[in-house]
């Protein structure tokens, strides 16, 4: 909502400064979004006279004009207007001026090799009218004395742009804002005397609101003004509209706009002679269409509220009028509409047709249902004053009678909510000034809510009014109490934070990427899931919810590779989705590593980052997070985006109920498809929801401390075994030989090749044997040795290598 202090003063008697006004507006919840210092800008527009024109040496359509701007010397301005000719009085924008229409700043510039010291303006550039052909031609008799003077009056006050919250339709009119200000002690509200006008005859154009289901119009007031002479608006009216950034069009249109901005009472003016018989307010029929004032043809749907006549649709009620019945400069007879439309209907229709107008914005929020007559009288009087004519009696058709809102307000509620006290006298004063009708019943007040405040429906709304007007700065501060009755984080939240920092501590940089992704990339990572599409994505490459955490990560790692970085480690912790219902998501921590380890090192041989690097990162992280004592089992069934031979799944039990993590090389086909150039790309995903909660808390785990002080022995073995045999299983077989004595099994060599059959490999391992209860003798060790060899040979078909 754009206002000026000057306009406010029509309703407000005050001597306060503009800065005080700005503070007060913000204090009462009418947030000042922006101030446009129009007067300073407009100082740069000067009445000027063209003395001489010449053709531009390098451009056929341009002229170089010598312009008198009231200084001793003429200045040169390049101009493209056809009507730029000698002796024309026009408006000159000097360097530094901001053109109101497009907000461009005028500078001294070279135009095809000729320096232009400013610009000559058209009416549309100055928002004076729609006229964009040629430059302004001022009437010589009126302006020849003013050459060199500012065109715009210097007293135009700043344009104040307010952000009015959707609950305050009453402040979409200047008078409503003034009322709020006066209530808050900023000046005194000027109550204007009701306009006195002489009505002549009945309103002869019949109006009928059809009784239909979901009729969007509940009241239609109208007034006919005959024998008018439409004209350009008088200067005061034009200035008023220009001061708030509106464009004057013609007196009749300007008056309806003025009343809307002044009283928040949208009106519509019809050329009465273009209405075929009478007005019918009805639901649109399917397939009906009409051409609106924005020059667009709209196809209407059933249920949209239209204003029609016998020939068809005249306009969309409360949203936009039609071209067919619009007023023109030749219009003789005007029908003014002042109606009430239901906000739900307005909102639905404008959403479907995608129309946003000042009227729609107001009806959608709810205008004062009792303002119909006032709007008609004010506009009719102005039309008669400016355009002449006779005003008919006012006709108002109603289908629903307005019901006022009554609230029983317990005064105690104010302190209960706000935490502070104000006097009953103050409460009464505020409510009275806001327009409430009050009956005082000692403990409570019976309030009749003003008809322009549809937002106030219950006692809590009254509390807000009181706090707001009295001042939010009066609310006290009570320091919070430092008492915790519940743990801040639950177990899974603690795990989330631990994993996040555990992975980061392995050298990974944390990223946060969108929860949505490109379906083309998602296709590569969705595995056995379906795309979850966003109906209205922000762009076509962010059109599905991600099924995997790796899709975005791989794109971003690629962008960084393109920037010339090679050895990267990224991770993200966040949601992935497996369905479009709330809750069909799981939390995953996923990471990618690219490039090499020890690249170009003087110390170590460089090598590609590999699956065992990332396996270490995953297993170490799990161990650090408290899963060190759980038996990890690994198999090779992984989603299709991993390399089938170089990837694995991790479980915490042999039953393989829930996958704890995947790790492995990213499938070479994906690297090819996304065109990633790196020596190696390895990834992992840990599924946090599948990590079962630790049964024992850390403090309980620490209690049992058992170590052995007896001698420990180590024995080395080498087994020749089937090539496909998994080392994990071999370790298990050995560990199971004697779980008490065998403390550790470590593989220290894998060998294939010479001296080993083609389908076999040699696994060399070191076994640590130690007892909790005694020092083992040589014969005990021999016994275990033999048992290990026999068991392995029997269970796995391996042979000890001699």
């Amino acid at each position, binding site marked *: 909502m754009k206002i000026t202090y000057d306009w406010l003063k029509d309703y407000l008697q005050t001597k306060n400064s503009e800065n005080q006004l700005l503070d007060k507006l913000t204090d009462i919840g009418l947030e000042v979004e922006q101030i446009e210092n129009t007067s300073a800008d407009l100082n740069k527009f000067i009445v000027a006279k063209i003395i001489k024109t010449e053709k531009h040496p390098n451009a056929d359509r341009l002229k170089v004009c010598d312009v008198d701007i009231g200084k001793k010397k003429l200045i040169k301005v390049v101009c493209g207007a056809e009507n730029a000719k000698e002796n024309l009085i026009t408006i000159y924008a000097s360097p530094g001026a901001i053109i109101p229409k497009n907000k461009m700043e005028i500078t001294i510039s070279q135009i095809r090799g000729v320096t232009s010291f400013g610009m000559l303006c058209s009416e549309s550039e100055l928002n004076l009218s729609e006229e964009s052909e040629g430059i302004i031609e001022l009437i010589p008799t009126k302006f020849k004395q003013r050459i060199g003077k500012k065109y715009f009056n210097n007293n135009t006050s700043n344009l104040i742009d307010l952000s009015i919250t*959707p609950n305050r339709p009453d402040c979409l009119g200047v008078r409503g804002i003034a009322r709020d200000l006066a209530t808050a002690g900023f000046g005194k509200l000027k109550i204007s005397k009701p306009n006195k006008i002489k009505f002549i005859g009945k309103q002869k154009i019949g109006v009928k609101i059809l009784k239909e289901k979901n009729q969007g119009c509940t009241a239609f007031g109208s007034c006919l003004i005959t024998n008018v002479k439409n004209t350009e608006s008088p200067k005061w009216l034009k200035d008023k509209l220009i001061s708030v950034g509106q464009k004057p069009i013609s007196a009749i249109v300007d008056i309806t706009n003025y009343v809307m901005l002044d009283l928040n009472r949208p009106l519509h003016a019809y050329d009465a002679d273009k209405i075929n018989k009478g007005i019918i307010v009805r639901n649109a029929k399917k397939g009906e269409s009409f051409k609106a004032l924005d020059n667009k043809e709209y196809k209407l749907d059933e249920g949209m509220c239209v204003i029609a006549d016998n020939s068809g649709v005249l306009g969309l009620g409360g949203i936009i009028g039609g071209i067919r019945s619009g007023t023109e400069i030749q219009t003789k007879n005007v029908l003014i509409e002042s109606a009430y439309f239901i906000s739900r209907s307005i909102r639905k229709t404008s959403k479907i047709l995608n129309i946003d107008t000042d009227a729609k914005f107001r009806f959608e929020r709810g205008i004062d249902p009792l303002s119909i007559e006032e709007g008609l009288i004010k506009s009719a009087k102005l039309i008669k004053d400016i355009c002449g004519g006779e005003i008919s009696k006012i006709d108002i058709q109603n289908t629903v009678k307005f019901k006022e809102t009554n609230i029983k307000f317990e005064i105690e509620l104010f302190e209960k*909510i706000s935490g502070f006290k104000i006097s009953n006298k103050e409460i009464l004063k505020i409510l009275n000034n806001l327009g409430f009708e009050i009956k005082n019943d000692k403990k409570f007040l019976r309030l009749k809510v003003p008809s322009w405040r549809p937002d106030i429906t219950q006692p*809590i709304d009254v509390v807000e009014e009181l706090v707001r007007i009295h001042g939010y700065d009066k609310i006290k501060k009570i320091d919070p109490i430092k008492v915790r009755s519940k743990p801040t984080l639950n177990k899974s939240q603690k795990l989330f934070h631990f994993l996040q920092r555990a992975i980061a501590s392995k050298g990974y940089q944390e990223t946060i990427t969108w929860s949505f992704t490109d379906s083309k990339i998602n296709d590569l990572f969705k595995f056995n899931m379906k795309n979850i599409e966003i109906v209205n994505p922000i762009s076509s490459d962010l059109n599905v919810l991600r099924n995997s955490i790796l899709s975005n990560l791989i794109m971003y790692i690629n962008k960084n590779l393109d920037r010339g970085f090679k050895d990267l480690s990224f991770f993200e912790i966040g949601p992935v989705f497996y369905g479009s219902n709330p809750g069909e998501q799981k939390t995953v921590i996923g990471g990618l590593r690219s490039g090499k380890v020890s690249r170009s090192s003087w*110390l170590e041989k460089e090598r590609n980052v590999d699956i065992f690097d990332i396996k270490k990162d995953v297993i170490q992280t799990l161990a650090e997070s408290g899963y060190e004592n759980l038996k990890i089992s690994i198999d090779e069934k992984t989603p299709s985006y991993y390399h089938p031979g170089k990837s694995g799944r991790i479980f915490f039990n042999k039953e393989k109920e829930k996958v704890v993590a995947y790790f492995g090389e990213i499938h070479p086909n994906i690297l090819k498809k996304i065109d990633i150039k790196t020596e190696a790309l390895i990834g992992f995903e840990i599924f946090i929801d599948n990590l079962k909660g630790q049964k024992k808390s850390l403090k309980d785990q620490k209690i049992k401390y058992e170590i052995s002080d007896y001698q420990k022995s180590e024995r080395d073995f080498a087994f020749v075994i089937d090539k496909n045999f998994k080392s994990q299983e071999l370790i298990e077989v050995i560990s199971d030989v004697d779980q008490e004595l065998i403390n550790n099994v470590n593989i220290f060599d894998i060998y294939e090749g010479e001296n080993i059959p083609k389908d076999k490999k040699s696994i060399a391992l070191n076994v640590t044997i130690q007892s909790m209860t005694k020092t083992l003798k040589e014969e005990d060790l021999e016994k275990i040795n033999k048992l290990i060899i026999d068991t392995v040979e029997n269970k796995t078909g391996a042979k000890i290598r001699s």
Partner: protein
Amino acid sequence: MSDLKKIKEEFLSKLGGNLNLSEINQIKSDLFGKNGLISLQFKKIGTIAEAERKKFASNLNILKVELQELINSKINEIEINEINEKLEKEKIDITLPERSFVRGKIHPVSQTIDEISSIFSEIGFSVEEGPDVENEYNNFTALNTPDNHPARDMHDTFYLDQNKEKLLRTHTSPVQIRTMLKSKPPFKIIAPGRTYRSDSDQTHSPMFHQVEGLHIDKNINMSHLKGCLNYFIKEFFEVDKIKMRFRPSHFPFTEPSAEVDIGYKIKDGKIVIGEGDKWLEILGCGMVHPNVLKNVKVDPEKYQGYAFGIGIDRLAMLKYGINDLRSFFECDYRWLNHFGFDPLDVPTNYRGLSR
């Protein structure tokens, strides 16, 4: 001359020479070996006359210790010389680069969430969560925003179905609804998380982060709200004083509603929080609307309280001087490295939020 004296003189002179380790060892065995000279003398003790024996034994022991010590010190000397010689040869260029290391980083948004949680933890809030995909009811209707409410226009919503029943939550407020539906008052929670709106420019991004706050009990009023936020802002920005302004605003789910501005100034191109006469909006809040409480079966006659919603990304930008919101989500290695935090920098109450 007695045997002992002879031995002493002979070996002192031998040990006085420039000997290597094996020569010394030879001497050692000549003296103390099975048939070494000293060993033989010890065997003689029994044969010596009673009167002389004690003195002899004493002299022998003294000689033994003397020679042993001399031999040990000789060996020690040689070993030290050997080490010194080795050290001479083992000098390396210690200015050569160390093995390379990589530093992981925590994203500034995650760090900020941890800072916020740490502050609210101190005053008794616990952390709640909700899903990113919400139904229309929890995101709007239950929050007193029926479908014809113009406030919905301020939320450019991403929908997952044509009926507009499933959507990406536009704020963290639906967590209020979920929390209150699943248990009984009092409630004292914060809910940080991802939120989504179909909007993108330097200050808007289609995904961003919010933290919701909710405190419902029997007598929680606007003074508690003001005190709580004042405490939070002061702690978060780690300044001694803060300028805070409550300004009336409108959210359908709170009544009365407020927006909160903090005072700041620009000094040397950097923003200074807590001083100056400029205002910056940082959060929205208010008393939970009775309609919302009714929707979650909490009796508004008995219970009341406040809620607030804070933009996490914006707080991070202000605190750490980040200019462009979109850069949070662009995963530029250089940016992450610059603005990220060391994983060991866990914000805590006793160590402070930030170093």
